[in-house]
């Protein structure tokens, strides 16, 4: 019977691990209550292995979660690590290539919903980086939202993808 006990324990531990799968960082925007905006599995592409010409900007990915009962809009953000923070979408241009561009109206997360940021799709860009984002470090980005400012912390990870070309102005402007 000793073995039955041993066998059962890891399963219980795993259940916990899997259900809290994300590294979730709360926003401090509403002290005392749940932060309106949280981030699950957030990461930004590191620049320490990029060629010098690519080091100016990088993308951030993960799942944004609106913990409030109202629609939440994100209009922009700021970070100590870069001069500018932009909210981007990736679209196909006239010649059929994928390119990224700022979204004019920001990101909108439905009440209690989430918003996925992925390579090749919607994402956050840190522009004019002040220095390398190093693999294994973290970076904090503060977002301007309809529920106030919310700071989110992202892991910095090496990633070979997310090399879409960048078009600074929205195609519909």
């Amino acid at each position, binding site marked *: 019977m000793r073995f039955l006990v041993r066998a*059962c324990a890891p399963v219980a531990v795993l259940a916990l691990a*899997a259900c809290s799968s994300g*590294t979730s960082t709360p926003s401090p925007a509403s002290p005392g209550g749940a932060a309106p905006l949280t981030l699950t599995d957030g990461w930004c592409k590191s620049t*320490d292995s990029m060629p010098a010409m690519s080091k100016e900007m990088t993308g951030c990915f993960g799942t944004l979660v609106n913990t409030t009962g109202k629609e939440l809009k994100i209009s922009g953000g700021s970070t100590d690590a870069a001069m500018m923070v932009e909210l981007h979408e990736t679209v196909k241009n006239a010649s059929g290539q994928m390119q990224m561009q700022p979204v004019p109206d920001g990101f909108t997360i439905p009440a209690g919903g989430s918003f996925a940021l992925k390579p090749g799709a919607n994402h956050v860009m840190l522009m004019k980086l002040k220095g390398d984002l190093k693999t294994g470090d973290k970076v904090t980005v503060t977002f301007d939202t309809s529920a106030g400012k919310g700071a989110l912390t992202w892991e910095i990870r090496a990633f070979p993808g997310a090399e879409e070309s960048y078009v600074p102005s929205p195609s519909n402007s």
Partner: protein
Amino acid sequence: MNHTTRRTAILSGLAGLGGVAGAATLAGCTGSGTDGSGSIQPPAGLSGPSARARAFRGARQAGIVEHPQPYAAFVAFTLPAGTERDALRRLLTVWTDDIERLTSGRGTLTDLEGELAAVTARLTVTVGVGRRAVTVAGKTPPEWLAPLPAYAMDRLEARWGEADLILQICADSPTTVAHAQRRLITSVEPLADVRWVQRGFREPFEGPGLPMRNLFGQVDGTVQPTLDGADDEVLFVGEAGPQWLREGSAMVVRRIAMSMDTWDKVDRAGRENAIGRRLDTGGPVTGGGIDAPLDLTRTDDLGFTVVDQAAHVRRAHPVTPHERFLRRPYSYDDAPEGSAVSNSGLIFVAYCADPVRQFVPVQARLAELDLLNIWTVPIGSAVFAALPGARDGEILGQALLS
């Protein structure tokens, strides 16, 4: 009870308690969808250990006392010139996160192919550091964290030599091993460079009546420390070792080429005489089953000892009680090179608290005299310190970097 039997007991225990169903349920609860970033429910037909993830957190790393999974990759890395302590911290931060995710059936943070992580297949990833990494961290390496003495039979090739870091990646599925290996290499760009990769396998159907056999057909890893705690001081670094390595272990990785062509010329009696064990049962040539004690003094009608004076088991037999270590070997059978028709051997992996005290005396005896040396040649050798485990809130190497 040997660990084969114990593993079987665990499996039957799981089945009896519906553990498999539990594992399947938990995989669905992260709700990240099927975009590769979240958990995927293992295929319905998959049951038992393959659907079960392992606990990663703990005082000791996984992958040492667990029964060896059938597929393994040993990946050694060098740290770029000028690497500083903070870079090592960042590297171990990334690996800790990656390994925790992979061993719980999730892709790594950047993984676009999380489906390949869904079948954990008892995945364990064990991280070790070489002498230079310890120095980079600002700590003093133990004396044993250095190349083993040179032995007369060695034909060491630099391409399988010492390195700054090692990952031992083991699982029941070769796909799981390959995916984990790929993710763990790419995730630490540009903090470490791959020095060598050794891929190994054991009998996937290993179990009661079907022991680990090397490619000479010999039952391997027969004599082992007990793994239930009684031999912990043999296996893990204790108070005598550096504080940053408590509950860690020394890890010796030697690549032993086995000459299949010359071995094929030997008859069965000659093969059994070389090792001192029967090929069929793995029991000593002096009689009894696989767990029977060796009778090193018994003689035959002509007055010769039944166990040859140069037999492997006689030479490897501990002379003092501390000459013991955990053998966790894997066979390799890689593509032949040049005009050879085989490229086979053994990735000899040993864990112990202090290899100079526990392993080197045995190795020295084997180098001096061992019939197996006729057919085996060490071509690679490296010594690492397998780090203590990462407890809640810690990274691997937390004490090393503190």
